[in-house]
């Protein structure tokens, strides 16, 4: 019954989304901005709110069916199990293709609803009596809601016609087939919703870009209306990617945090584009420049997130994520992708010439720095795009099968990002329209000094083995350390010097500035983590029999035995290990496992991890037996947690800056 209600709500939402795509557009296109136009636009807003409610209801129905283990639904039977803990029954509802698509629709509709909320008290005035800037805001809102409605209609159609989550089974089984055990994890309960919030949030900036093109008005108010959505989507995407990376780190047990897997790349590309957009929309808002470019980036950002969905859903590229390999679905998304890129670009070709604003600033200006940021970020995302799709293209053309692995990205992506980090140390010290902030020279001097001293220390420790760092650092590693210190030094010196001079902005401007610092400092923390793990990490693989000990990075590991343990829906071989940081200190127990899930006949590796600020101890159990001994992989990963903490700081910085955005002067 509940499933039928959900199914019905989904169909109704689809119909309303079609109306939502047409009605406000019709209102906005009235030659006379009269009462009828105003009514149509209001109806459009209500349609958006209503269809969001219906999609939400459909999603709730699906979650309830999962909680109640209603195995008469094909989806529940295939992906759930009555013995599963409650939280994984709930997260199981989006741990599969159909459910995750419905979640995608929910977030899409929620963004439509946010757009549709009335910011000012409802003005009963007919549109022609509104002040000009309010009328323009109304028209932009109506058109953006319509574009969002088009995307919603397309995705709801995708869900209903190719991936309906509410299909019944004629003969319901008594027990479900369970959820992929790798996905039974708290990190994964959060990762998809967060990532989708980011992916789908980019649909809102896309909707504003297209709405601006339809109306032919791309101005400061347009940029100001779009910016909150960009920031929100970017922050969510940042968190979503970080959660995914953290999950891969502790759940897959491969000891790494980023693998340049096609699906990871699929989320990184829109992130890079969104980061560029986040910065260019500032220029559009502040200086009314880079407008066409901002429109293009908004289109590119959402296209890349559709491409990401395409990669994941089509199973086109080999990946651990390809849980749905269905050519029909892939084709549908490919079609959608074609429309989402093609139509706006046609619109852009038509409207573009009207938007052209002559660039008017010297290269050494805030605008110039933000252009550099954009060029580097877009280059980086092209590099990732090529690395991800080149194997596929080559196979189609010549039949040769190749892999493009981490070395490619290290040799191309990393240098471009290094340039970006170098520029991040300088850009915020430049002012709009050209020139330096006061005390910029001193700031750069301090940052450069810190970078030189720090790098010099590590260079010395390379040359003099007596210094006991224990690791020889490559030139690229030294450059990384120098850049991290440069950026950190520049931010701290800027904060310190401003504080000393008492030139601290007030009110909202302070929040905006602190947000930027926090986000940029998040990058420093992230780099510290990535460099710490990459340059100073140690690992040892050993076959151990009970009683054996291993020395690793100053720590003493002792292996006791392997025992059999049982969980709620799994059995496991668990290794009993202890690790001691210093001989006098306490020994910490570590329990890496290999779990077997009888319901799905699958097994997973559970790493044992002990985290602290200074780094993680990480142990993974491999194959073996009492007689031959067991293979154990042991790691010391200095500062690894900073990678995710830094990402969190970036997202928080974005939100802080968002809360501090300036109200545009309401010029008529």
């Amino acid at each position: 019954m509940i499933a039928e209600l959900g199914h019905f709500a989904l169909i109704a939402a689809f119909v309303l989304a079609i109306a939502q795509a047409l009605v406000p557009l019709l209102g906005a296109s009235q030659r006379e901005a009269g009462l009828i136009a105003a009514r149509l636009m209001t109806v459009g807003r209500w349609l958006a709110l209503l269809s969001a409610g219906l999609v939400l209801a459909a999603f709730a129905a699906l979650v309830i069916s999962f909680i109640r283990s209603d195995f008469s639904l094909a989806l529940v039977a295939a992906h759930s199990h009555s013995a599963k803990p409650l939280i994984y029954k709930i997260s199981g509802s989006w741990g599969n293709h159909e459910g995750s698509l419905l979640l995608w629709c929910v977030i899409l509709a929620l963004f439509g609803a946010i757009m549709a909320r009335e910011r000012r008290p409802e003005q009963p005035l007919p549109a022609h009596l509104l002040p000009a800037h309010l009328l323009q805001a109304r028209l932009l809102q109506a058109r953006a809601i319509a574009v969002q409605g088009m995307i919603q209609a397309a995705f709801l159609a995708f869900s209903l016609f190719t991936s309906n989550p509410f299909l019944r089974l004629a003969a319901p089984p008594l027990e479900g087939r369970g959820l992929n055990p790798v996905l039974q994890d708290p990190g994964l309960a959060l990762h998809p919703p967060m990532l989708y919030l980011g992916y789908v949030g980019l649909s809102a900036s896309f909707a504003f870009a297209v709405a601006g093109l339809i109306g032919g008005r791309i101005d400061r108010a347009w940029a100001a209306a779009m910016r909150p959505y960009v920031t929100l989507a970017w922050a969510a995407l940042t968190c979503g990617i970080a959660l995914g990376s953290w999950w891969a780190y502790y759940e897959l047990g491969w000891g790494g945090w980023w693998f340049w897997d096609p699906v990871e790349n699929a989320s990184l590309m829109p992130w890079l584009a969104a980061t560029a957009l986040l910065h260019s929309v500032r220029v559009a808002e502040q200086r009314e420049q880079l407008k066409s470019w901002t429109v293009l980036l908004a289109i590119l950002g959402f296209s890349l997130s559709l491409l990401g969905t395409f990669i994941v859903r089509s199973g086109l590229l080999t990946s651990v994520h390809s849980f749905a390999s269905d050519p029909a679905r892939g084709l549908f998304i490919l079609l959608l992708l074609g429309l989402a890129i093609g139509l706006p670009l046609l619109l852009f070709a038509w409207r573009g010439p009207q938007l052209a604003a002559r660039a008017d600033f010297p290269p050494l200006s805030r605008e110039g720095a933000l252009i550099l940021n954009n060029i580097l970020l877009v280059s980086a995302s092209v590099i990732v795009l090529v690395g991800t799709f080149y194997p596929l293209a080559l196979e189609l053309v010549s039949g040769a099968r190749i892999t493009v692995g981490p070395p490619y990205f290290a040799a191309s992506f990393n240098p471009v990002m290094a340039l970006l980090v170098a520029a991040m140390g300088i850009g915020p010290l430049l002012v709009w329209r050209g020139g330096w902030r006061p005390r910029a020279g001193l700031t750069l001097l301090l940052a450069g000094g810190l970078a030189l001293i720090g790098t010099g220390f590590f260079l010395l420790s390379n040359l003099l083995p007596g210094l006991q760092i224990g690791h020889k650092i490559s030139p690229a590693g030294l450059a990384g350390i120098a850049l991290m210190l440069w950026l950190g030094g520049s931010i701290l010196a800027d904060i310190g010097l401003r504080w000393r001079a008492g030139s601290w902005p007030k009110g909202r401007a302070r929040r905006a500035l602190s947000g930027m610092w926090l986000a940029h400092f998040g990058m420093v923390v992230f780099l510290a983590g990535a460099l710490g793990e990459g340059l100073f990490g140690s690992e040892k693989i050993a076959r151990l029999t009970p009683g054996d000990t291993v020395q690793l990075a100053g720590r003493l590991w002792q292996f006791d035995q392997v025992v059999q343990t049982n969980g709620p829906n799994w059995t496991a071989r668990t290794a009993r290990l202890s690790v001691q940081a210093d001989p006098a200190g306490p020994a910490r127990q570590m329990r890496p496992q290999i779990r077997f899930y009888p319901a799905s006949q699958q097994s997973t590796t559970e790493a044992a991890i002990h985290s602290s600020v200074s780094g993680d101890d990480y142990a993974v159990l491999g194959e073996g037996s009492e007689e031959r001994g067991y293979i154990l992989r042991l790691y010391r990963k200095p500062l690894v947690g900073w990678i995710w903490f830094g990402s969190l700081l970036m997202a928080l910085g974005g939100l802080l800056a968002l809360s501090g955005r300036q109200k545009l002067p309401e010029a008529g």
Partner: protein
Amino acid sequence: MTRRTNRLLITVCAALILGLAGWLMLNALRDNIVFFYSPGELTSQLKDGRQLRLGGLVEEGSVQIEGLQARFVLTDGEGRTEIRFDGALPDLFREGQGIVADGRFQPDGQFIAATVLAKHDETYMPREVADKLKERDLWQEGAGQ
């Protein structure tokens, strides 16, 4: 500075940076791609020490493990390649199952793998392996249970 020189400067800088990024990318692409082969496709020319990805089935009864060293034979029904791997084999490494080994041929003709990938779970198999096996009729649904 005039508006014209500003625009010119910005355009030149942008072109330089884009050129640099493109050059880095092409260089990285040329030096870092790894080709995939199955044992039957190997020629002596490929055994010159370049990095390769080999995919196929682990031959039944061929796995020998001594301490940290594993030796096994990879087969695709046409060719056999003996592989040595020093490290922890993946949990799902089994005889008769499809795997991918990444590594190089040594001058003595032995293939030393740097990494060995097995199916990630029962429904996932490296696509390269699945396709090759299908071509050679060795594919069984749910192989390697």
